[in-house]
């Protein structure tokens, strides 16, 4: 998965190396925090962060079991006809492209939404023109007090009302189009206060191969110690049951550890996984703790803003 703009990095699989400079500390949520002085700001930030750490009020929070072994999934056959006949269909597409090039040049289908917007723009221009002429006519009409003229003015006002109604309809259409295009996203949060023992780095690997390396630097460690929650990753994710691998590097010549968590992101919502770094001080994967919850867009609170 990739945010628009992650580009090449996302394509080669290694999405980002997360250091302190790129980890967003979720301590700058409210204007109060931004406006406070250093000390006062710290207090406010700490409170906000604590709320985030306690996080989801109202949402159903699930504890996620961390396993040593990658979850096995039964693969059912899909798109069988296509796979059995792909050579034939591919050949037909090549023939189609050649034929299309011969006839119309190389082109692709235009998204119907853009065509609809174009039509809407034309309608708006026409409506504006009509509105202008109606307003001019209205100005002239004001000078006339003849009853017949009044009836004509009433008819014009009715027409203006109709124009406003169609304008509102267009706005509804655009709103539906954009509101209907919410995306499913996943935010991975880090939390933990055992500052001296917290792992200083880890790698998150999702089922599709997207890899995120997280480095826990001194400043982040200090913030976590004060109760802050940090965002390690935020990306689009497919709304389906899937796993993620959490890998800790080995220290002082000892082997590292890898655990797997399974989760089901809810469609068109912001989904959160919170990793408890305190539980990850040992390489005993079974003891690692994680939580999962989700919330609809626009209902974020406690310092987590939905403006990403």
């Amino acid at each position, binding site marked *: *998965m*990739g945010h*628009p703009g992650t580009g090449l990095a996302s*394509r080669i699989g290694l999405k980002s190396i997360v250091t302190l400079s790129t980890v967003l500390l979720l301590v700058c949520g409210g204007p109060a925090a931004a406006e406070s002085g250093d000390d006062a700001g710290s207090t406010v930030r700490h409170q906000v962060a604590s709320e985030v750490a306690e996080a989801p009020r109202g949402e159903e929070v699930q504890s996620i079991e961390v396993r040593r072994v990658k979850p096995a*999934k039964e*693969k*059912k*056959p*899909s*798109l*069988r*006809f*296509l796979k059995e006949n*792909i050579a034939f*269909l*591919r050949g*037909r*597409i090549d*023939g*189609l492209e050649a*034929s*299309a090039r011969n006839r119309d040049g190389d082109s*692709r*289908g235009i998204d*119907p939404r853009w065509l609809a917007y174009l039509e809407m723009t034309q309608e708006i221009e026409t409506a504006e023109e009509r509105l202008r002429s109606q307003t001019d006519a209205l100005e002239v009409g004001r000078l006339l007090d003849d009853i017949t003229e009044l009836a004509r003015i009433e008819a014009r006002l009715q027409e203006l009302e109709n124009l406003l109604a169609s304008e509102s309809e267009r706005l509804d259409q655009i709103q539906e189009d954009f509101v209907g*295009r919410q*995306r*499913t*996203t996943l935010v991975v949060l880090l939390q933990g206060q055992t500052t001296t023992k917290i792992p200083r780095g880890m790698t998150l690997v999702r089922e*599709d191969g997207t890899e995120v390396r997280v480095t826990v630097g001194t400043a982040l460690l200090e913030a976590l110690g004060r109760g802050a929650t940090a965002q390690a990753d935020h990306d*689009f*994710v*497919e*709304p*389906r049951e899937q796993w993620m691998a959490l890998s800790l590097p080995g220290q002082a010549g000892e082997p590292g550890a890898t655990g797997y968590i399974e989760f089901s992101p809810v*469609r*068109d919502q912001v989904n959160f996984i919170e990793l408890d770094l305190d539980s990850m001080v040992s390489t005993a994967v079974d003891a690692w703790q994680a939580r999962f919850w989700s919330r609809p867009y626009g209902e974020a609170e406690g310092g987590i803003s939905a403006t990403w």
Partner: protein
Amino acid sequence: MARPCFSRRTKAIVSTLAVSLVLTAGLIVPAAVVAEANDSASARSGVEIAAAAANAWAADAQLIYLENDEPVDAGGRTERWGYLYYSPSLDRSRGYSVGRGKVLQATDLGMRFDAPLVSGNWLDSSNALQLAEEKAGAEFRSEHGGELQSMVLMRSVIELDEPDRTNWMVIYSAEGVPSLFVVIDAISGKVSRTWRG
């Protein structure tokens, strides 16, 4: 006070109604259970679900192909539909198997397949199957003991001279005889071609 007096006929009608109600209640419960247990759906019902996943994979993902992943019933419904999306920016295709209202599986196609995107307003599988049955499908099945094998939706490909047309291709097969292909214009609902092969 006068006691209400019911005729024998009225009593018989009331008794019959009561028995019918009891029987109907008995029938309604199992029917509801069956309806709930039946997870099959038409092709259109899974598009939004597949699109939500595809848009998370690639912002420019476009639906280019779909087919049934499980046998299709007489109403043009199945337990899983397979939707294939293509991303021009990634130049890759990814398939989503959708059933029971969720994405059950997602896999990269693993080979290049950049078919043109399908039109947005295509006929649902239930309508397409009905048209195919009326045209030649029902006859083929009864004559050869055949069955519906696949329902495939994609743009052009079959009709190279109609590159903008999204078609349903309904394929019937029977042992010992060539398969029957019924091609339907997925927008107008007109059966454009049938052939055996």
